[in-house]
């Protein structure tokens, strides 16, 4: 197992080295004539209006939260799926199946809840500063 991790480390070194070497080679060969016009941030040919580091649409935040929850779910299910066949061949398949079923069902309930709350809708409507929950006015 340690050897596998060493391989991963070697690949990290190789990938970073590959990128660094090409960049280094380039820095010897390539020209460098910066000027103010060239170095402006692209904004359709206009002078950029302020920095781009501003508050951003919260729906990405919600997507990220939902992602974390479900990714953990996938990560927890993978080991169960891995040993599932061992359980099956020990004739305990139904037990394992109902356990997976219960786990997925709870998560599915979560998905339904997010769905009903309309957090999955890309164009989410906000009414008077509070989220439009199911059954509310639309």
């Amino acid at each position, binding site marked *: 197992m340690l*050897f596998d991790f060493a391989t991963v480390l070697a*690949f990290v070194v190789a*990938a970073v080295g590959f990128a660094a070497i090409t960049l280094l080679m380039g820095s010897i060969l390539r020209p460098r004539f910066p000027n103010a016009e060239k*170095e402006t941030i692209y904004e359709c040919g206009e002078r950029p209006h302020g920095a781009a580091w501003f508050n951003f649409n919260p729906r*990405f935040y919600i997507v990220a939260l939902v*992602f974390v929850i479900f990714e953990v779910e996938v990560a927890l299910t993978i080991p169960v799926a891995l040993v599932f066949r061992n359980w099956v061949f020990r004739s305990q398949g139904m037990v394992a199946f109902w356990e997976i079923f219960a786990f997925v069902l709870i998560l599915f309930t979560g998905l339904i809840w997010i769905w009903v709350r309309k957090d999955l809708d890309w164009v989410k409507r906000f009414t008077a500063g509070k989220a439009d929950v199911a059954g509310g006015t639309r």
Partner: protein
Amino acid sequence: MQETLDRLIREVLHEDPQVWAGSWVVYAAALLAVGFGLTVFGALVAGLTSWWERRIAARMQSRIGPNRVGPQGTLQFLADALKLIVKEDLVPPESDQMLFRIAPYFVMTGFALTFVVLPFGYHLSATRMNVGLFYLIAVTALVVVGIMLSGWASNSKWALFGGMRAAAQVVSYEIPGGMLALVPILMAGSLDLHEIIRAQGGFPWDWFVFQTPWGFIAFFLFFATQLAEGNRTPFDLPEAESELVAGYMTEYSGIRFGYYFLAEWGNLWVMSAVISTLFLGGWQVPFVSAETLAGWEAAGTVPVAFYGVSTAVFVTKVVVLMNVIIWVRWTLPRIRVDQMMSVCWKYLVPIGMGLVLLAALTEVLSFQLFGDAAKGPAPLGTPRGALHLAFFAVAGAVPTVLFFRKIFRNIRLTGDRIDLTNW
């Protein structure tokens, strides 16, 4: 790989790898060589794919495409790489300098790390990890870090929008991707990519895609999630040039820009290899059954030709899949961002959950029905194979009929007609 190196040390250098201190040097050198070699292999594949894709795109659009550099333009990618390397490297002074410079390294690392476990043929891969698929899901997430960093560090509104969109898309599609990958894991009972391949057989009906209807559905959905994770059409919204300029790459130029495209085209190989491993039998050669292979291994007489043939089979499958991905790109239009999110969360995720449960239930039931015969692939002649075929026929026929009904309805509604005269 450690066994091979140990044998090398014992037989060529006449040292005991357990006690000899120099074996660490041998290990490190060999690993670095393999790592560097496979990274270069990935870069070459990416370059050749870029040329091949441009040729196919040109063909599909009645153009010629790049055909000047080298025979049929095959060396075009070298010319492009050289041009990118000697091109002026612009780092906007208003951007976050350090993050802007590191971001491509994350993308390159995430791309190169997938080659640690990707199989190339029988017993051919950098390592055999018992957590292979899990590792693969984990390291591909590194690319997202690079994308978000580049989007944020550029200090450009286009890059920010593009980066956020790309991140939202890639992380969203990781969920159904992981769930659909559970279907072959359930059927193989292993995460080691070579073990997953060995749980399948050489003939198409031994592949996981045709083993159960759930595998069949999961194959197509997994293909779609892989397209989305690789930012390929119809899911290439992060690079929607008509609305986002160049997305998160807007401020990049020169070879830094090149790394993103290297990773994107190289990812075609990665995703095709993963799909063919999970669903299409990987390197399994027809007419070489699992028993034959086990016999060879027990006797220690695996023919050298088998390594070559299995690699050829695997590469053929990968290249065919890569071509399909390229055809998809030049055939389908790009979908809208809200459609992209709803396809993922409202269709793929619930269907993925259902498929996992159905695949698990099928495993249980087929063991109860067929006993020990349920442990391997189901050959066509056996009752289990016949049952699978019947399942498959029904589960395949219903969507097919519905699909064609819908197509013909659309054709009728728009007053169009099917014209085959120009074939």
